[in-house]
């Protein structure tokens, strides 16, 4: 279990912000921090991993104190067992893929894990390549594999998929879920993508101005459980156009674009880019073998 109780004054673009939050993450959970940029999500991750020092508070992980301002305890990042995947991947440009992973080995650690991780991440054929020659999705896989070399119990993912195209994102989401289960991790993700959050996480914390303003199970959090409709998806509005007396709304769900008919009174409330829930009764769709 991770127990965070943090206070920190952050200098942000829009002036100062007082971060003050309490978070409890159960062992083995996949948790997402959600919220506008500048809400304190990345700072929270950095404080957990020891890269940023809180002004006051405590960090306890599995019964061990990592930080306690009253008792003057502050473990260095080197002493905290955290795998951190940075938004820019932070691959070492002077090393090839295999060397990037090997660098992460602890002193005396068995090297066989490198081969296992390269294979699991399907990076075998790329192991001699330098990071600059890799695509975004490949870099992401290297960063993730590298974060797992030390077999951390906690995996921190700071918007790991935001720079990737949709197809790669969907693929890597599956991969993240696999990794989370296979390595029995407690995973903390920062993400803005509602579909991604619902797909991946058990629990969501919404941050605003350095505080947790809402928390809940992922599906409840975004109101996806708020109707009896069982045939439901979340997506983003791509297009709204009028046809005869109706409006046709195109919604991007995963990598499919679906169309939903709406009345004028509904269409007026929507704009392009809105995140929406699309639902129908389980009785209505037809199902066919393909």
């Amino acid at each position, binding site marked *: 279990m991770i127990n965070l109780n943090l206070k920190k004054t952050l200098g942000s673009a829009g002036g100062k912000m007082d971060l003050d939050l309490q978070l409890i993450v159960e062992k083995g959970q996949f948790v997402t921090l959600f919220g506008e940029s500048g809400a304190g999500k990345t700072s929270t991750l950095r404080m957990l991993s020891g*890269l940023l020092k809180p002004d006051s508070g405590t960090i306890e992980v599995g019964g061990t104190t990592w930080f306690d301002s009253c008792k003057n305890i502050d473990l*260095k990042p*080197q*002493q905290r067992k955290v*795998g*951190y995947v*940075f938004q*820019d991947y*932070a691959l*070492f440009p002077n090393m090839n893929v295999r060397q990037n992973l090997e660098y992460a080995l602890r002193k005396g650690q068995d090297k066989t894990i490198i081969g296992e991780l390269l294979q699991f991440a399907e990076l075998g054929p790329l192991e001699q390549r330098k990071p600059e020659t890799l695509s975004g999705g490949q870099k992401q896989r290297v960063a993730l594999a590298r974060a797992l070399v030390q077999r951390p119990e906690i995996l921190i993912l700071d918007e790991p998929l935001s720079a990737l195209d949709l197809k790669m994102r969907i693929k890597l989401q599956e991969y993240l879920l696999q990794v989370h289960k296979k390595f029995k991790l407690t995973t903390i993700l920062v993400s803005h993508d509602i579909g991604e959050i619902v797909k991946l996480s058990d629990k969501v914390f919404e941050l605003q101005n350095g505080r947790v303003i809402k928390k809940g199970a992922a599906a409840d959090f975004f109101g996806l459980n708020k109707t009896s409709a069982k045939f439901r998806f979340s997506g983003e509005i791509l297009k709204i156009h009028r046809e005869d007396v109706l409006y046709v709304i195109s919604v991007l769900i995963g990598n499919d674009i679906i169309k939903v008919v709406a009345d004028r009174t509904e269409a007026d409330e929507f704009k392009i880019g809105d995140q929406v829930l699309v639902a129908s009764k389980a009785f209505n769709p037809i199902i066919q073998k393909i």
Partner: protein
Amino acid sequence: MDWQPLMLTFKLAVVTTVILFVISIPIASWLSSTKSKIRPVLETLVSMPLVLPPTVLGFYMLLAFSPENAFGSWLDEWLGIRLIFSFGGLVVASVIYSLPFMVQPIQAGLSSLPSTLKEASFTMGKSYTTTLLKILLPNIKPSLLTGIVLSFAHTVGEFGVVLMIGGNMPGKTKVASIAIYDEVEALNYAAANSYSLILFSVTFIILLLVYLTNGGFFKRYGQ
């Protein structure tokens, strides 16, 4: 032509550059990562030789190192080192005088690296020294080269500091730039021209190398 001043110049430049390289890396890495309030003060001190007349620097060093003064006599009595009018003194003076030319490129190189490289290494349990040696420095090779070459070239070209602290002792402190001055004083223009031409060519080639390298020439054909 007497080759001794030229040899002395290059010996001084090599020794100075090696010492500067070793001491500048910790200074530059501290400056690039610290949030300390005394950072601007230290940065200013490091950069002073850029703007100060070399004679000012030389004058104060002459005073400080003179055995008549406390620091100089302490060095003399306890360590047996006499820094004025000696090669050792020239090295110390050159190191101080060329410090910004080594520190600044390295500092700029380190600052230009994304901080996540360092942080990623820390979360993997690596110490700062390991991170510096295996991650940071290998990724700022062009900056290191710039620092080395600029310090070398600058040391070759110094005059005022050397004259103040080293004097003009053949074989000991008479470097090429001083030899040129001597020859001109003696109206021996041909000798002055030989020295000058050699210094000019060497410095030109060195600087050209820097620009070619950092312009990517070596990246494409070397490495």
